[in-house]
């Protein structure tokens, strides 16, 4: 056919110059290099903010703040929020959000306590049941999100109220006292076990939080599952088409988040000594705050889970630092509000200039 021959002629013109398209190598100055590094290392900004705020409060307050005691105190104070923030990060990486984390945390701890003391179960078994329960709650969220395809915000808004109400109904608002737990089921307080290194005091719960974050960061970076979590958060349809099982990934993320919250519930018993159904009621907002300050995008697929750890620590440093400066408790809330907006504005700015 004559027309397809003539038609194509003009296209061959493009081949005369056979230089391959190349990726541009940008020359950057010092500043440019720093920006580029900040851009590539999403946890770097919160880390810098964290170090800066420690230094500033240290300079303002002096030894009372800049002591191993005070600094490890921050770790102890943020451990519950930190563990929950790990769960929240996973979910936010898939472009979801989980309002029910606090409810799962406290209900799991109540189940561990009540199974031991109301029904006389051995503590180890009760803890196992609590962990399974948390996982089931997470799985319920995951099922509604991945199968019924409801928006995560709404699903967890609903399950939050459901789980919390069940928690009060089941526990009949009974507290189990620390002394009883100490005598009859010390395993429940395991996460509160202390050990000292110089003036620094660490608890098993703190070690657990840090280890959890490091393990999750490694898993997200170095396993296929981790890459799939990012891909699902980035563009679920593209992930599906390129061979990721989106539903299974989402389900596993929510279930894992539930399990982590149950661990947070266990750590909660270690921290407060007793089992109380009124704990952790603001853990959802606090964990979201930590994640957001840690530079993880609410739109999913971007950010490092270590950022959430730094975010939680930043809030902890601010709270303690402001208290030590003698600020009223209200002022702490005020400054944390300012901090949230400032952290995200800075993050946005860095992304913009280094784009």
């Amino acid at each position, binding site marked *: 056919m004559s027309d397809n021959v003539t038609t194509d002629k003009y296209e061959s013109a493009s081949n005369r110059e056979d230089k391959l398209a190349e990726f541009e190598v940008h020359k950057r100055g010092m500043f440019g290099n720093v920006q580029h590094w900040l851009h590539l290392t999403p946890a770097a900004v919160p880390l810098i903010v964290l170090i800066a705020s420690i230094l500033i409060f240290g300079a303002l307050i002096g030894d009372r703040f800049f002591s191993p005691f005070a600094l490890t105190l921050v770790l102890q104070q943020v451990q519950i929020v930190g563990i929950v923030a790990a769960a929240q990060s996973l979910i936010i990486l898939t472009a979801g959000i989980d309002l029910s984390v606090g409810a799962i945390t406290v209900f799991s701890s109540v189940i561990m306590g009540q199974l031991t003391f109301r029904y006389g179960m051995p503590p180890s078994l009760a803890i196992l049941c609590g962990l399974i329960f948390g996982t089931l709650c997470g799985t319920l969220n995951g099922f509604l999100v991945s199968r019924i395809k409801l928006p995560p915000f709404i699903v967890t808004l609903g399950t939050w109220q459901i789980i919390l109400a069940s928690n009060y109904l089941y526990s009949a608002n009974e507290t189990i006292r620390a002394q009883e737990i100490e005598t009859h089921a010390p395993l429940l307080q395991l996460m509160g076990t202390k050990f000292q290194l110089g003036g620094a005091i660490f608890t098993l719960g703190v070690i657990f939080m840090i280890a959890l974050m490091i393990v999750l960061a490694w898993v997200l970076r170095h*396993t296929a599952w981790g890459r799939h979590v990012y891909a699902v958060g*980035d563009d679920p349809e593209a992930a599906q088409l*390129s061979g990721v099982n989106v539903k299974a990934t989402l389900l596993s993320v929510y279930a894992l988040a539930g399990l982590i919250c149950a661990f947070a519930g266990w750590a909660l018993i270690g921290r407060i000594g007793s089992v109380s159904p009124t704990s952790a009621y603001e853990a959802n907002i606090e964990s979201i705050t930590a994640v957001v300050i840690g530079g993880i995008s609410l739109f999913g697929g971007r950010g490092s889970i270590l950022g959430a750890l730094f975010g939680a620590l930043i809030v902890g440093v601010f709270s303690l630092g402001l208290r030590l400066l003698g600020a009223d408790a209200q002022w702490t809330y005020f400054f944390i509000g300012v901090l949230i907006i400032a952290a995200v504005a800075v993050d946005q700015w860095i992304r913009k200039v280094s784009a």
Partner: protein
Amino acid sequence: MDLFLHRRADHRRRCRGPVDQKGIGMSEPILKGRGLIKRYGRVTALDRCDFDLMPGEILAVIGDNGAGKSTLIKAISGAVTPEEGEIWMNGKKVHFTSPSDAREAGIETVYQTLAMSPALSIADNMFMGREIRKPGIMGKVFRQLDRPAMEKFARQKLSDLGLMTIQNINQAVETLSGGQRQGVAVARAAAFGSKVIILDEPTAALGVKESRRVLELIQDVKSRGIPIILISHNMPHVFEVADRIHIHRLGRRLCVINPKDYTMSDAVAFMTGAKEPPTEELAA
């Protein structure tokens, strides 16, 4: 025979359906679809559609916007599950419920939307869903990825195809230009497609030079003996590379023609309904 029934049911569909049935010098189709149906709400995207791909050939699929071409290849590649109908591969009936099923069977697809995760690296995207794990305990127990191996392979494939020289294989896909992304998607398909490669409008967003490279790549893949399905609105491209042309209209195969026997005008006329297709069209 069901072919006969179809012809009776729809008088406009005149050209010979499953072209291999003549059996003169033709092998079995490597991929065969029969009576595929897929509805979206009230839209019938596939309406008892048939389909045949012969070994080693380049089969072009042309048709108007919304004719159901993308849906057809999604059905073949497991991205959508047809409500009715059957798909055979190498004579065996297959049932893909997800794109990974089809990929395991050796069918690689470049979707119209490219299907890449913008924030992840080129290497991550190329191996998405079929990551290589480290040997030994790190891989087996801890399931650690073998990044160096994946990066090496990805770099190798991209340069093999001569599509581009990548400075940094760990660059996020979102930092690539449209053409470079297209290149990565095509390279991914060419690297892993062992049985069939499907390309949905691979040149739609590309400039002249990039389009040409993709066409060369297609012929390259064919020379390795792998059959290709190519969807395109670009008639000159289609007539240049295709061995046979599947004309899609209103959710089904209207007919299959040989580009040597017909002009572009004919193809367009069939496709748009301006002209009736030949009653007995032998697309060999």
